């Protein structure tokens, strides 16, 4: 158990080192922030002064060493655009993204699992076929198209829901939540549906195929032969085993959702980390871009580790290895 953990930890550190190097190198090539930081009629001397102030005149290796040193002390630098420490900036945007992701995940799970079970139990029913083909559309449509379609129908034509923003927020300590106001809740609906759609389809299809697999296995047939009640067989014996991979996928998908909420947040002007990232690309705000990549790398490494550890709890056989 301890060996397993230490190996995973070592791997995690290696991945983070690689991500740091990539983050640094990549964003040296996205463009020079000086051009967007000076005024239109800036003189050469002015531009040089900005470059020196940002340390961009130093050799790339020296810049990298400084960057790693900063990262190790938890200092991700200061945003060129917002003039705030990047850590503060990311933390202030985290609530928006997390609330969106939580609602999307709850939506995907609470609809995806029952729909998947239903499609597995009655694979030939009309309803199952309809759900199957409808979700096929859901999974193949680009996120921004889904988002814009929802905006067109529910914001522009019906005028039921707002097309952008988070609505009114309530401060609870360091966390700004939209859960406690009507406009906040209304604002959540369209973006979370957009974000949930892909995940919902994935979960539904996964549950369905796992469930069909499990239902055709011997122990389920024996259970039927023993005359156990159907609800017990479906609910306790089959679904429980079918949900194993769903745990993994949901875990990884939460990471995906946080990292790739970028498109949804841009379409709906949702002031989370994804929007922060897109705005940083256009500036280009290198510290924010690098920090975001580090954050996402860290997130995936952590999620993978947690999923691995959870496995050993769910399936005790893994512990002995």
């Amino acid at each position, binding site marked *: 158990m301890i060996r397993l953990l230490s190996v995973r930890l070592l791997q995690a550190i290696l991945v983070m080192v690689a991500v740091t190097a990539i983050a640094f190198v990549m964003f040296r090539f996205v463009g020079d922030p000086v051009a*967007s930081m000076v005024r239109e009629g800036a003189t050469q001397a002015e531009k040089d002064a900005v470059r020196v102030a940002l340390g961009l005149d130093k050799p790339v290796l020296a810049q990298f060493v400084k960057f790693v040193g900063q990262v190790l002390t938890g200092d991700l630098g200061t945003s060129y655009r917002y003039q705030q420490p990047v850590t503060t900036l990311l933390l202030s945007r985290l609530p928006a993204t997390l609330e969106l992701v939580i609602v999307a995940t709850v939506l995907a799970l609470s609809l995806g699992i029952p729909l998947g079970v239903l499609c597995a139990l009655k694979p030939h029913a009309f309803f199952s076929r309809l759900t199957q083909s409808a979700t096929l559309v859901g999974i193949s449509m680009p996120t921004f198209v889904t988002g814009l379609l929802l905006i067109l129908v529910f914001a522009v034509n019906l005028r039921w829901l707002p097309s952008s923003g988070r609505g009114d927020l309530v401060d609870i300590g360091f966390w700004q939540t939209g859960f406690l106001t009507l406009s906040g809740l209304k604002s959540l609906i369209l973006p979370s549906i957009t974000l949930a759609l892909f995940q919902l389809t994935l979960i539904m299809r996964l549950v369905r195929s796992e469930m069909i697999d499990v239902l055709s296995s011997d122990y389920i047939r024996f259970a039927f032969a023993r005359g156990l009640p159907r609800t017990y067989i479906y609910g306790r014996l089959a679904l429980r085993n079918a949900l194993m991979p769903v745990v993994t996928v949901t875990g990884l998908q939460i990471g995906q959702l946080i990292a790739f909420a970028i498109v949804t947040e841009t379409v709906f002007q949702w002031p989370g980390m994804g929007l922060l990232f897109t705005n940083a690309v256009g500036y280009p705000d290198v510290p924010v871009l690098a920090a975001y990549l580090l954050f996402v790398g860290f997130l995936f490494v952590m999620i993978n580790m947690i999923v691995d550890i959870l496995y050993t709890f769910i399936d005790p056989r893994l512990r002995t290895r």
Partner: protein
Amino acid sequence: MKTSIKTLLAGLAFLAPLSQPAFAETLRWASSGDVISYDPNAQVDSFTQSVHHMVFDPLVRRNKDLKLEPALATSWEVVEPTRWRFKLRQGVKFHEGQPFNADDVVATIKRQIDPGARNRENLSTVVGVEKVDEYTVDLILRAPYPLLLNDLAAIYIMSKPWMEEHDALKPGNASTGVVTYASNHANGTGAFKLKAYEPDARSVFEVNKEWWDKPQHNLDEVEFRPIASDATRVAALLSGEVDMIAPVPLQDVDRIAATDGLKVVENPSLRTIFFVFSYRPELHATPGQPNPLRDVRVRQALWHAIDTNTIQKRLMRGKSRTAGMLVAPAVTGYDEDIDVPLPYDVAKAKALLAEAGYPDGFKTGLACPNDRYIADEQICLAVASMWAQIGVQANVSVESKTTYFPRTDKGEFDVYLLGWASLPPMDGFSPLQALLATNDGTFGGSNADGLTNPEIDKLAYAASTELDETKRVEDLKQAFRITHDQVLYLPLHQQPVAWAMSSKVDMPQFPDEYVRPWFAQIKK
């Protein structure tokens, strides 16, 4: 049944006014970008500056015709060529109640010229500030400088006691990581008070009832929302969530204009779009061969070969203003006589090329951004095909502004597209100093392609110190005349500003693209 619906409607109509506070006129407008910071010294972004103007007043400001007029200063005089004296307005109060006086101006100017101020260069010639009495202030200049008032129109006055109270006397700065209370809060003397600021979400302003000036608007509140996605911004307008959007994506102009209750307002802006030539010995496209662009006849040929009419009608949908010089009519130094493009004449272009020794044309690079100016990429493609007709093979390259502008700065292109709005001074000195004068550290900051003309340099230095306005304007015009005759740059047009708004909103549009809600009226 009929009656019951009628009764219901009547009831609803009666209830409707109760659902919103009486007489509250809120202007809700959305733009593509957000305010970067409310610290007036922390950025150089002209959009951010335009929003600041709602909260802060400068010493002098632009009126409805964009001419300079007194604001927090009531009058001024040049005591010595390097010392300007400003009389300040009395009885003005900041939003949080502090009275306005000379101490505030002194503290603001000191903060502005602090080496840590990001926009330090917006007031580059001022080296000192002195309080004469409670309502009189002297600004000390490094050298005689004619554009001080133009510069001051973009310097917003902050309250000294407020800055002291919140430890914000020094400006915020990204490179050193300085963030101050002033980054997220604002206390000015302007027409509106900043009530709430949520980055990337919204800024809310309420009317300043104790404003020193007579309001020309009928607003109680302004809500600004940044909406980066073009489609979403248009959706917000169509769904009635906002009253105005600026800018409008060009492809949506017709659709919005055709929608009941909405209108589109379009006018040419100050931003002139033009081509820049490389004056280096060789072109990047043809290493080892002499640069044909150094020959004036070649540059004239390239101008003659451009069908500006087609560009204006097709690409700009008839909304641009074809230009012959680098500045727009509203900018000082504009000259009607030279604002004439060389006529579209392929035969003449060919003859000029042959005369210059290129009867079969030549190869050159042609670069454009694809996310900065209106129809930028299409302009390049169109011009390349027009030049092909006279044998000039232009190799078009297109890229995003984030990598494009650093490359223009390093002189990596042969011919490229650039826009210039001459802001904030709104004066011909801006392109003269930045584009036309030889690059030497203080002048020619955007002239990275080896252009050098001693006569223009002389005029640029003269115009930077000449206090006699008539003489100075003559210097500017002379410099632009040389630019035109020598085709040092190839002007195309002033691109349009497009806003869309509810027909209930009456809002003047300005060529500097500033949104000025203090001139807005909402019909009841």
